[in-house]
């Protein structure tokens, strides 16, 4: 499994391709990418993280996902710093023998990254900047696991 936390942009499809190339026995690959949307005049998205905690926290989430869904492999890449509209914030990739586990593994990773990885988003607009509030729906999403 691989976890990359970086400020720099990355090519998600190059990363997905490299991830896929080194796996044996997968019948199903799922990728998710999160992208900065320009809703409501957003100009930049600032992402802060707790560097000493984000790596161990996400490592633990990935290990849980692997054990629970029998993933053959998983990849998480998450950026921090300032991102522009259209840029890729993060990606997840999972590989499993069958489709349900690959999908569930990717959704589990996303649900936990949303609410349990120490990242915070601030939306910058022409008229100021506001921290993104955590959504009740994101907390609720954890209950199905």
């Amino acid at each position, binding site marked *: 499994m691989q976890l990359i936390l970086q400020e720099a942009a990355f090519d998600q499809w190059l990363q997905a391709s490299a991830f896929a190339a080194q796996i044996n026995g997968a019948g199903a690959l799922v990728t998710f990418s*999160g992208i900065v949307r320009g809703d409501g005049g957003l100009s930049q998205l600032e992402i*802060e*993280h*707790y560097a*000493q*905690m984000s790596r*161990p*926290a996400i490592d633990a989430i990935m290990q849980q996902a692997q054990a629970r869904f029998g993933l053959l492999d998983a990849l998480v890449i*998450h950026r921090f710093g300032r991102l522009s509209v259209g840029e890729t*914030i*993060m990606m997840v990739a999972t590989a499993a023998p069958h489709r349900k586990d690959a999908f569930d593994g990717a959704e589990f990773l*996303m649900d936990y*990254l*949303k*609410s*349990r*990885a*120490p*990242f*915070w*988003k*601030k939306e910058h607009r022409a008229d100021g900047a506001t*921290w*993104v*509030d*955590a959504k009740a729906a*994101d*907390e609720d999403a954890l209950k199905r696991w």
Partner: protein
Amino acid sequence: MITVVYFAWLRERIGQGREMVQTQAKTVAELVDQLRAMDDYHAAAFADLRAVRVAVDQELTDFDAALAGAKEVAFFPPMTGG
């Protein structure tokens, strides 16, 4: 001495991301009481604990958690990763 770190709007409200605190607090809640008493900025940041999450030595925990042996306590809003 314990290192206290803040993120997102807690960091902004308090005006710094990290401080060293001399404390005898036995739990996170006792540490919060001490921090609140330091100045108005700290008091404002900890005004509503329902909006605050805590990690002790990089592990998510709750306000009842013991501080024995802890090196770093982090306070931050609910996370918005992904």
